[in-house]
């Protein structure tokens, strides 16, 4: 009796081990590290959804190097120290081959030491301020020269002469505006035509350019009055790095003051199709955006991507996926591109080892994504197309201008020299 019980337990044990080992051979663990709760959940949940969709799409076609992707989803909960703990769990406990995640720069900065210590690999998909280059992070994100400076080029070509810099008070707008200040000066825009104010240190060096408001700021009366006077002479525009819901009181006040996109357009770097859903669309018509992808791109690759994603949304059983009114936007597409680039790199390297995958990535791999061709670079950034778009009442963008194959350059501060005024 006991003997047989022992035997059966043993048999069951062996069977389990066998099943486990079969599973272990057939799958590769991939981490998803996004905030699924807290303030950032609104934006980051969409990235979780698109990553799960991409994994399903790849698994249906045979997986990565013959192995199925097994997603490990963890919640960073908009809590930056928690991001570091969760990253540690993904790398040390789950032994994930790669992690896709992070949105805010502060969450990336907080997980960076964990990835460097464990020699992990993180794919980071959201526009950021540059000034960073880690061998353990692959930045599919837009660098400043793939979003901010092309917009300035576009506005200069439209005959704009005065630029008002406005942003939320944190690292991305502050750094971006400093780079933009240098860039504008290098294009011959005199410093008195750059609005928003400057802060200088004792030696007279500009340490902060532009006007900043805290998160959740609601009173934009004074700033709008300033913009109104700034733009009174015409040929002015606003370069906005305002984040999230502060855009609502800003644009409401902007419209109430009689400013329009024709008189003084606003180019926003933080409003994509996804954020647009929570903004008053009517008041934003004609304002500009700049991303490396818009849902309105007319290409077979984009059409297939949008259709497949919507189809996946309809049939998915993953908990907490919102099914109605979904759109696709640049951070989502850059997440999607990232997964395929990683797949290509693994298949080229013939291994899941981070060092070999990195080498393959650095050798320059290309993928034809929904936003056009993207190519990985030696500096762990991405060459991609940049689009300038104009917002429409239906929450989509009309594409006005396209810059092809822009090289991602993280180190921009100090590279633009002021143009000496020619008399």
């Amino acid at each position: 009796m006991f003997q047989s019980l022992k035997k059966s337990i043993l048999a069951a044990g062996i069977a389990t081990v066998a099943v486990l080992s079969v599973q272990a051979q057939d799958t590769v663990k991939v981490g998803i590290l996004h905030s699924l709760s807290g303030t950032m959940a609104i934006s980051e949940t969409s990235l979780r959804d698109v990553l799960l969709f991409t994994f399903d799409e790849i698994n249906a076609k045979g997986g990565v190097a013959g192995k199925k992707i097994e997603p490990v989803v963890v919640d960073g909960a908009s809590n930056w120290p928690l991001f570091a703990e969760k990253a540690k769990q993904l790398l040390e406990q789950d032994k994930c081959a790669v992690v896709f995640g992070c949105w805010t720069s502060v969450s990336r900065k907080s997980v960076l030491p964990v990835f460097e210590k464990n020699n992990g690999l993180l794919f980071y998909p959201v526009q950021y301020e540059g000034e960073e280059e880690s061998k353990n992070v692959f930045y599919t994100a837009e660098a400043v020269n793939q979003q901010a400076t092309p917009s300035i080029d576009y506005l200069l070509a439209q005959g704009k002469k005065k630029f008002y810099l406005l942003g939320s008070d944190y690292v991305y707008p502050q750094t971006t505006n400093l780079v933009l200040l240098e860039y504008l000066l290098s294009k011959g825009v005199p410093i008195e035509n750059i609005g928003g104010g400057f802060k200088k240190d004792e030696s007279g060096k500009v340490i902060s350019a532009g006007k900043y408001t805290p998160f959740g700021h609601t009173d934009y009366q004074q700033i709008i009055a300033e913009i109104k006077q700034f733009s009174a002479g015409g040929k002015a525009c606003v370069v906005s790095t305002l984040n999230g819901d502060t855009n609502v009181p800003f644009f409401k006040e902007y419209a109430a003051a009689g400013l329009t996109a024709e008189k003084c357009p606003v180019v926003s770097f933080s409003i994509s199709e996804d954020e647009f859903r929570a903004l008053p669309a009517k008041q934003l018509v004609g304002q500009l955006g700049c991303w490396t992808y818009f849902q309105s791109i007319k290409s077979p690759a984009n059409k297939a991507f949008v259709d497949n994603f919507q189809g996946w949304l309809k049939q998915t059983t993953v908990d907490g996926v919102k099914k109605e009114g979904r759109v696709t936007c640049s951070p989502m597409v850059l997440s999607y591109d990232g997964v395929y680039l990683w797949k290509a790199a693994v298949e080229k390297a013939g291994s899941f080892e981070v060092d070999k995958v990195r080498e393959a990535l650095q050798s320059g791999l290309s993928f034809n994504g929904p936003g056009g061709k993207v190519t990985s670079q030696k500096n762990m950034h991405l060459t991609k197309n940049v689009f300038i778009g104009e917002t429409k009442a239906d929450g989509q963008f009309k594409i006005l201008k396209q810059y092809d194959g822009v090289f991602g350059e993280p180190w921009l501060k100090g590279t633009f020299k002021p143009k000496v005024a020619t008399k």
Partner: protein
Amino acid sequence: MIKLIFAVLLSWLLGASIYAATPREIIAKALLIEDSEEQAKLVTSLGDSDPQEVIALLTLWKEGGIFLNVDAAGAKVPVTLDEEKDGEGKQLAHRFDTGAAVGKLLASDLNAAETDSALRLAMKSVLDMAQLSSPDAKKRQEAVETMGSEQDPERLPALLARQTRETDSRVKRAIREAIALIQLKDENDAVKIAACNELGAIRSIPSQDALKAIVAEATAESKTNLANAAQLALNEIAKHVTFVNTAGTAFRGLSLGSILLVVAIGLAITFGLMGVINMAHGEMIAIGAYTTYVVQCVFGPGLELSPFGIHIALPGMNATGTLYNCYFVLALPLSFLTAALAGIALERGIIRFLYRRPLESLLATWGVSLVLQQLFRLTFGANNVQVSSPSWLSGNWTVNDVLFGWNRVFVIVFAVAIVFGVTMLLKKTPLGLLIRAVMQNRQMAACMGVRTERVNMLTFALGSGLAGLAGAFISQIGNVGPSLGQLYIVDCFMTVVVGGVGNLIGTVISALGIGMLDQSLQQILGNPVLGKILVLLGIILFLQWKPAGLFVTKSRSLEN
């Protein structure tokens, strides 16, 4: 002879072909072109046509009233839709070029003819010329201002011609400004100097950039007369700018103060008079804001909600125009009522058991506030909802370059009305008498036969209802989301505590004072974050000096 006939015939033909291109035909042609530069060229060619027709047609296009319908043969046909909708929401479509009916279509199936910024710029230029003879003075003024900022000498004759005929004083001033601005580009220095003097005399803020350029240019070429004239004009304008900023700051301070007052006056009653530390006050504001949202949706396309898996569909009235703009008038009393009802439920359910235990009421109402926030999230979603302002709240009134936004004027009037209404209610009505009696001495009032329980309930409902009204207003200037209340609760308590608990006049004065201080510091420091920090620091120091706030309520009651 034959040659002559041929020439006549040719010129007749040419004339006919030019004559044939009515604005409608040109626009119909432009609508079908993909390239926006070509479109812009065609639109620019409209300059010589009948202004009123050009305005009507281009405005229709700009505002998305023209749709591109794909007919059976696969060709695009520009169409316009009738206002009337049938049972399925379909509208009768007409061909844009001929006006012939092409059957009933659903607006959501069609693509509106798009415009991009280059095309809109061309449209604006044509519209500006056409608007110069518009019967609406405001439109004339805008057109003139654009022409001035472009400093295009070609527009000078049109402006000069208009100047002799113009009767409206604002437009007259705008024309003077525009003419002077264009004359700054003149070859002749004497004309330039005259233009500088003119700009200085009318204190034209938009001309500052142009004048600065003149100063730099004239100094480089050592034309002292011109440089001096421009500099003098700039000094005049700078004085004017200082005045505009001061007046603007005063107005903005007043409006911020009014917002603080509107959100805090409800709390001044529940916390100030009743002594209940109601942490859910912010959520009462949010209830008002969400009520406004629901009313807006009912006036508009309707609303579908699914809280806790229960599906609720509210049919929409699909109202447009004036009727839609009236939604806010209905939203105001409704948001008062809903918030007041929620207040009654909160008072009956929880607070009445905790009147003698302020700390417990703080904890309990904080819990209620969390529950309510989650309730909003489950009902309306975690994202902010969109509340659009009625058109009569989104314009502005400009006097001497000082901007008075309608929504801001409205909130000031609104605040005055609320303070007046509440004061009247407390001082002149039987209910007010009972409220004051109960708040002064509950036991004594009860001894005199006042039903204190009921008075408590009604007072709390009044305070909550006022918070709801505030929410309806907040929805017009900011975000409506689940955490709306959290954004205002600190400001509310701050205003009431600084004013002195238990005193409505104190709340009024402290709200206006904080508003003014905040806006002045922002204007002086040019930094909203630093301004806010200094205001909070000032309040901390003030409360160290006067812990009971501005106005201390003296009482003989032994309870305190």
